[in-house]
């Protein structure tokens, strides 16, 4: 059986280039999703998503029930926000955010001893809903891409006219090292996941649903297969384990051998791509007409005493999580998200937001050794060229970035096709922070475009 699965691994779909960082998922992969007590206070940024910030519906001092909407969407590319716990609104003020700047946030003081039942929502028949109604219902849940991009999910459902969608791809790759939230979700909530897939398929008019899972999680493939019907329109397929398999363009290539053209979205080739956590939430929330109030977060790394996968109310400050789970001194890095694309945080008051699937607590030497960090000039080795999944030339881009030739980078070397996966920086033997160069270059180009 194992030999057979090894053999079939050779024929699993994949994309060109990419890297194989140590996955470090053993810390938490076998730990079922657990609940933690409520934090005394929740911090709910009004902008946890790409698009316009939500507009608060509550005043200071107002009581709210768990699941109650506390902010509404401001326009189409925006989502509402729901109270993750019953309590009282303490304040609406600026608080630190994961990205750095202070953002306007609702501070919710949780009632201690409250049973915290969700009183909101009523069962609806999703079978009877039209695609338009589903899109609206998805917006009402406040769902954003839970894989990390935090792009409002309903916007993806509203495909421009003339772009028929044939397949909905569900992204269960979780290619970021350390993170295991999607893995646990697929094992424990396979039914919600498949239900969500069917809802998404109907919303987009797709004939087929395809769930892609990296082949280091074959138990998840099995778990999903067990809840499918014979001759189901939804199917599940393993793809090769390789970073960044979870990028939508890579996944489409691996599963269907389709290349999404540069600068285009999946709908241009008849696809819709959604993360498994997002899809499972749709399967869970939509039939109950509820909003997103919690998410699974992998808290892991050598700096945490009890690593695991936890169901965490949105807005829980990192400080509370770390106090609950035991925090070792000497920690140097707190990373929100995965180690490849996540960012370090400056304040322990930063809350867990909708897009945050992981909290890594790492020590200096567990990340990189001194030798690995030593900076050298670029030696033209071409390792970055061999790693870039977008088949760009990070070597030349890096050289141009050094000379601040940002315009040439964009025009001749396709800077804007870089989605900042970090593969080039990972392999660079000269320890050049290529991805950071590219981020700087892109923002410089954006500023210049805005100025002219």
């Amino acid at each position, binding site marked *: 059986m194992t030999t057979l699965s090894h053999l079939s691994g050779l024929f699993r779909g994949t994309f060109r280039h990419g890297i194989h960082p140590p996955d470090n998922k053993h810390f938490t992969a076998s730990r079922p999703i657990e609940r933690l007590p409520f934090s005394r206070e929740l911090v709910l940024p009004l902008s946890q998503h790409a698009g316009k910030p939500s507009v608060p519906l509550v005043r200071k001092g107002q009581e709210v029930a768990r699941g109650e909407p506390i902010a509404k969407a401001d326009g189409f590319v925006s989502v509402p926000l729901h109270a993750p716990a019953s309590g009282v609104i303490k304040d609406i003020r600026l608080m630190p955010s994961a990205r750095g700047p202070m953002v306007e946030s609702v501070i919710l003081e949780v009632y201690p001893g409250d049973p915290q039942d969700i009183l909101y929502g009523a069962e609806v028949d999703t079978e009877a809903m039209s695609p338009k109604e589903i899109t609206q219902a998805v917006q009402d849940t406040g769902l954003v891409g839970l894989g990390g991009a935090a792009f409002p999910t309903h916007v993806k459902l509203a495909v421009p006219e003339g772009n028929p969608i044939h397949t909905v791809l569900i992204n269960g790759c979780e290619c970021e090292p350390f993170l295991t939230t999607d893995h646990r979700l697929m094992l424990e909530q396979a039914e919600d996941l498949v239900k969500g897939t069917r809802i998404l398929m109907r919303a987009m008019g797709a004939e087929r649903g395809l769930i892609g899972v990296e082949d280091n999680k074959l138990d998840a493939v099995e778990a999903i297969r067990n809840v499918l019907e014979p001759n189901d329109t939804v199917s599940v397929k393993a793809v090769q384990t390789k970073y960044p398999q979870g990028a939508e363009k890579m996944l489409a290539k691996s599963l269907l051998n389709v290349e999404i*053209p540069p600068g285009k979205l999946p709908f241009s080739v008849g696809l819709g791509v959604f993360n498994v956590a997002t899809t499972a939430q749709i399967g869970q929330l939509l039939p109950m007409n509820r909003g997103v109030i919690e998410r699974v977060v992998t808290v892991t790394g050598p700096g945490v005493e009890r690593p695991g996968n936890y169901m965490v109310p949105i807005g829980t400050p990192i400080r509370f999580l770390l106090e609950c789970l035991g*925090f070792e001194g000497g920690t140097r890095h*707190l990373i929100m998200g995965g180690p490849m694309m996540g960012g*370090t945080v400056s304040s322990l008051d930063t809350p867990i937001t909708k897009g945050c699937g992981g909290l890594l607590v790492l020590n200096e030497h567990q990340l990189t050794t001194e030798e690995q960090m030593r900076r*050298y*000039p670029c030696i033209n080795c071409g390792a970055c060229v061999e790693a870039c999944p977008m088949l760009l030339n990070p070597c030349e881009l890096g050289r141009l970035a050094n000379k601040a030739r940002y315009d040439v980078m964009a*025009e001749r070397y396709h800077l804007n096709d870089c989605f900042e996966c970090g593969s080039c920086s990972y392999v660079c*033997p000269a320890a050049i922070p290529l991805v950071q160069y590219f981020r700087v270059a892109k923002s410089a180009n954006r500023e210049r475009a805005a100025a002219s």
Partner: protein
Amino acid sequence: MSGAVQLKTSPHLRGMHSVDKIMRHVVYALLPVCVFSVLQFGISALALILVSTLVCVGTEHLFCRLQHRDTTVNDWSAVITGLLVGLILPPGFPIWMAVVAAFVSIAIGKLFFGGLGFNVFNPALVGRAFAQAAFTVPITTWTPGMAHRRFLEFIPTTWTLPFLQPDMEHFRAWVAKLEIDGFTGATPLAMMKFEHLEADKLELFLGTLASSAGESSAFLILLGGLYLAWRRFLDWRIPAGVLGSAFVVSGIFYLQNPDLYPTPVFTLVSGGLMLGAVFMATDMVSSPVTPAGIWLYGILIGSVTVVIRLFGGLNEGVMYAILLGNAATPLLNNLTQPRTFGASRRPRKENAT
């Protein structure tokens, strides 16, 4: 607690390779070649390799000190250049000339361009090209290998006094005294070129014939190259392109006139082609990074080598072929930009905006 937290940008993980690790492993791969060279040519080769390495490292250190910056010798790249300079000179090459060649290779070939990562040409070959122009006689003076007293006495030309040419009369008398059958003072390549005599290919492969200090054993060079390619410290496509194209191009000539031209196998195992293909054409700094560029670069070097060997005034062409390849690298990089994921085969029009 929060005071100890450090802010960094992603990715927070880093692969296992670093520049000094790559360079160190290239040195490891070169060591068997050096050892064989000493076994074959004795203490003269040892002195030559040691001196050229020390001079290269010393020159780099000195220049860093003069520029008031941290020394860069600990990245091991100067050691590679030093070893290579020693290995591509004839074993009896006067030491003072080797000092000059080694100094030129690092100073002019590398540091004048800006040091590691900025040199356009392979530094060792810059040194060798300088020696070729400046010291025409000693660089074509070959010594028989496996001489009886090679571990006891130096080749007479080795300790030529600085700024003097070696005493060739004395050298010829010394060679005659060795009484080695059939030694004509010519390398297999020269014999091929001028007398159309082809040396035994197995001997060439194992490396028991006259040659530069470290170019004789194609076998050990190939072994080092395989190790580096396996550990991914070397791009296998470059030696594959060089050797493959040299094989094909020389094969075409051989088929046309087998009496005049050498067999393709002879081309591969003779002279400096193997060392050049494995250890010098693959120098990362001076070779292209794009997939198509890498193949074109290898093919260019392999074909030019054969053309120089067969039609040029020199019997050896690897050095100039690689230098030419180095010079073409920026152009090759520029012309062979990879096709972006999902882009159509034809260049995109939107670039014009």
